[in-house]
């Protein structure tokens, strides 16, 4: 079999991410040139790439992708069961999609995700709930205490987004931390998470007021949706099914925020060597 164990510990760990990108041909031309320049003078990395490539080639020889449609059900296999359990017609889609708000909130998401990526937390509770009340109040002052000057009638959607983002930045940043925590929690019995949600709910009136001042129905919709989700996370009497359904909603909310600005991924802010 044409595989080997590679070069052991000699290759350059600082190039690990680039080597993966190179292996899967996802580097920019500039990045590719940089890797090739490095491996041209680094035998260990050169062999690391070569041995990994040989391993993937061996995996490809097994034709697993084609085999993996074994047992693929046809519609007729699932139709009856599907139709029998099909839920009532879903709620009509809200016509006011949220691209503007999503862009604003994605900034918040990035801050939260960067927090995660930076391993700066162990528990959401220690970040949000256990903070001194005075500190929390100070954080939320812009969203809850400061009246906003009316936006001019000529304000664009982008202007409204920026105004809203500026005024509610901390609220949404911490909300996203809760959402991310909940989306990945094994259970909802985390007292810190519930306490964090309750803290945020006390601030949601301010976020609603800001949204009202901005006169953007899309933003108001999302604030209401977020508040509803936080309310349910704060509850400690959810059934397993309710938790499962809520996790889906949280996933959906995070996805809409996250997907709105894919070019601003957290990883792009990483320090690469």
């Amino acid at each position, binding site marked *: *079999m044409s*595989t*080997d*164990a*590679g070069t*052991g510990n000699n290759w350059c*760990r600082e190039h*690990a*991410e680039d080597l*993966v*990108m190179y292996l*899967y041909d996802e580097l920019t031309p500039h990045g590719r040139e940089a890797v090739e320049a490095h491996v041209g003078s680094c035998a260990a990395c050169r062999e690391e790439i070569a041995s*990994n490539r040989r*391993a*993937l080639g*061996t*995996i490809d020889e*097994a*034709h*697993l*992708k*084609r*085999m993996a*449609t*074994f*047992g*693929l*059900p046809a*519609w007729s296999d*699932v*139709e009856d*069961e*599907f*139709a029998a359990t*099909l*839920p*009532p*017609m*879903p*709620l*009509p*889609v809200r016509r006011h*999609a949220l*691209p503007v708000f999503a862009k604003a909130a994605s900034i918040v998401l990035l801050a939260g995700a960067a927090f*995660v*990526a930076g391993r700066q937390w162990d528990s959401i509770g220690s970040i949000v709930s256990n903070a001194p009340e005075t500190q929390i109040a100070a954080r939320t002052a812009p969203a809850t205490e400061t009246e906003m000057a009316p936006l001019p009638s000529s304000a664009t959607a982008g202007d409204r987004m920026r105004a809203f983002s500026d005024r509610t930045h901390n609220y949404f940043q911490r909300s996203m931390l809760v959402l991310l925590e909940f989306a*990945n*929690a*094994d259970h909802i019995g985390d007292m810190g998470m519930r306490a964090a949600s309750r803290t945020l709910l006390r601030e949601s009136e301010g976020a609603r007021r800001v949204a009202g001042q901005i006169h953007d129905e899309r933003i108001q919709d999302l604030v209401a949706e977020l508040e509803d989700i936080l309310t349910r996370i704060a509850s400690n009497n959810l059934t397993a099914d309710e938790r499962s359904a809520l*996790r*889906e*909603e949280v996933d*959906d909310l995070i*996805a*809409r925020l996250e*997907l709105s600005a*894919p070019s601003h*991924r*957290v990883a792009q802010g*990483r320090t690469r060597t």
Partner: protein
Amino acid sequence: MPADERDVLERVRAGDIDAVQALFEEHRTRIYRVCLLYTDSPDDAKDVLQETFMRAYRSVGRFRGESSFTTWLTRIAINICLNLRRDRRALEPLDPERLDDQDMIGHQMPHTPLGNPEQALRTRELRERILALVGKLPPRERMAFVLKHFEEFKIREISVMMKISEGTVKSFLHRAVVTLREGLAGERESGDSAPSLARFPGRRGPGRRIS
């Protein structure tokens, strides 16, 4: 979003079962393949596929097209797969015998270039070995590898689907590749205790609690 897909989604939102079928036909192969390679269980893969479409139907009213429908649907399937593993982590190990040739013939598998019987046997043994090695990868590392290597999604897409940073995806992929490489080379016959050579310095995973 393609106009025809938008039309189908509108019909799904209106409760049109034929539109649900159209979506199922369009996406079932890819979703099922991800699930099967992840779970190595046709039964589980079928269950996940069905549940994926059930959940998609229930929440399609909230799908606003910020991502592709493929990304959105795959994300649902991933969540179900990861939860499946979370629920069943203590259960049986993967069974590489399930994808044997006899079963595949019975299910009208696509033509495979297995050549002569000896080659077919070697390929089968290799497949079983790879499945066993893939099955030993940590759940999210395994999912990242399946999405990248078999489904050929971009790292950026995988990060969105799995709600992790691109750096974490790369970390997962590198560890998976090296683990598989070492396994194929026979250096890690037990595969359950030796640390991977590819652990990134200073990294301890994404800091989440799923896997």
